[in-house]
């Protein structure tokens, strides 16, 4: 599998759209094209191997299942994980002669995707810094009353930031990276320590993605039981995700009804004490 100039340019274009802050907008860009699973489909279409693209995208997706960017700090960049990581992982899987559906292939994809995603964080800060220039121009235009030029600032000029920080890096890394991946894999024996470590890293990394999400949703120790419950549903009882979601919805409904009942009881309770204190007063009189 080889990535040609035209394919690399297309990948670069999608990198511009999918970044956070991307030019596809938040919903279509970052949250759709910037999810590795969707990017797997896009990259698969561009490189002409959709099933491998989706398998690779799915493997990387688990690491980035909850990419929350609170206050604009990022630990990973989606454009790099998606539009550099997935194409290079596909090249690597073909070069190593792995079956795309094998665990080794997923581990390799995860390790490559996460490495590029982490290094790519610099692209996020680069884009945001260049955008400062357009914003500076925007303030001047607003002061002068050129209000319509704000469209230029918000939607047109950032393309320049993205050509520098998304298009060119993706284009170059996809073109140059494939040779590097080929030579690297050719020089490392599959059962050597380096490859064993790489596979192990790839199998461990999804834990970080899950843990980032847990950090968000777990506020008290008992919340862990909810997590273990879902885990057990799939690990022991063999539920797939749709079945697990259905069961989860049912328990959430029970939880909601109990919570609202508690609220009602609390209201009634406070009403009752009020009434009781009224009674006492009347008795006093």
């Amino acid at each position, binding site marked *: 599998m080889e990535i040609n100039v035209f394919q690399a340019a297309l990948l670069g274009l999608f990198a511009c759209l999918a970044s*956070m*802050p991307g*030019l596809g907008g*938040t*919903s279509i860009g970052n*949250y759709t094209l910037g999810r590795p699973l969707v990017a797997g489909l896009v990259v698969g279409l561009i490189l002409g191997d959709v*099933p491998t693209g989706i398998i690779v*995208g*799915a493997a990387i*997706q688990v690491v980035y*299942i*909850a990419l929350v960017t609170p*206050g*604009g700090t990022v*630990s990973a960049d989606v454009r790099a994980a998606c539009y550099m990581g997935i194409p290079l992982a596909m090249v690597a899987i073909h070069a190593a002669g792995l079956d795309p559906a094998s*665990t080794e292939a997923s581990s390799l994809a995860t390790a490559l995707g996460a490495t590029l995603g982490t290094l790519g964080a610099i692209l996020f800060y680069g884009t*945001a*810094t260049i955008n400062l220039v357009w914003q500076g121009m925007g*303030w001047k235009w*607003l002061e002068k009353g050129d*209000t319509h030029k704000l*469209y230029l600032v918000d*939607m047109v000029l950032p393309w320049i930031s993205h050509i520098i920080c998304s298009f060119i890096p993706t284009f170059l890394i996809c073109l140059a990276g494939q040779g590097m991946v080929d030579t690297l894999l050719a020089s490392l024996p599959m059962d050597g*320590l380096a490859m*064993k*470590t790489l*596979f*192990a*890293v790839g*199998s*461990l990394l999804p*834990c*970080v993605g*899950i*843990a*980032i*999400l*847990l*950090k*968000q949703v*777990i506020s008290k120790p008992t919340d862990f039981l*909810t997590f*273990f*419950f*879902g*885990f057990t*549903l*799939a*690990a*022991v009882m063999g539920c797939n995700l749709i079945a*697990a*979601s259905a*069961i*989860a919805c049912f*328990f*959430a*409904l029970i*939880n909601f009804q109990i919570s*609202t009942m508690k*609220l009602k009881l609390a209201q009634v309770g406070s009403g009752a004490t009020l009434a009781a204190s009224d009674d006492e007063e009347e008795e006093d009189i």
Partner: protein
Amino acid sequence: MAENTAAETGKKKVSKKALAKSFHNWYYGNLTCFSQEHMQTFGYLVSMLPIVEDLYDKKEDQQKALTTYSAFFNTEPQIGSMIVGVTVGLEEARANGDPIDDETINGIRAGLMGPLAGIGDSLIVGTLIPILLGIALGLAEGGSILGPIFYIVVWNLLAYFGMKLAYYRGYDLGGAAVEALVGPNAQALRDSIVMIGTMVIGAVAATWVSISTALELPGGGTLQGTLDGIYPKLLPLIFTVFCWWLMTKKKVSPIVTMLVLVVIAFVGALVGFFGAATIAAPTV
């Protein structure tokens, strides 16, 4: 146009066209010109632009009104479209002569953006998207395009119409719209939704994280076999909780956590805990 409506009702009202343009400017442009200094400020300015042009005829008045929205703004953009809607309502009231000054508008804006960012991050980014992705991952089994297609369609429909609903609710109801999101009943609903997310993410972890050991026990048999006898998928569970512990209790950043895992992988491969050939096939 503004004059026409003003003549008919005696009160200025933002035209439907301007509202739609304002909403779409926000829907698309909320983060396109992001910088660390002014995160969503320019997205906010372009979404208020059609509104002030519709409400004020004089160029100076438009500029003056627009300058109100040049203060820093950042929230979760999906649910945050409600704040834009609320300020459109405020701007309309101000154009009709209500005593609303810049400080009032910016006070309300700043007061809302924090809480709504918290709600949006936990409900949308932390719950809705992972659930949809979890289901999509299941559908994508074996490289099926059904998975990505499911996510693309369902997420975008929910995001577009959800944001539209939030925007127009904000415009119609003002602050009352936000009450519906933060009141005690809403809290109970949110907790229940987060509960779904927590359970589904447990199932995602069990389905999609596959870690196994190649270590053979001295007395014959494998360590993996013994672990499976205790609790299937014990290693993924242990490592996930370990990462959570590092990040939450030890305040380690995700990048450092990943590096710790690299070290564990290296040492594990060195001592034979991890092996290439014995990595278990995914059990789905």
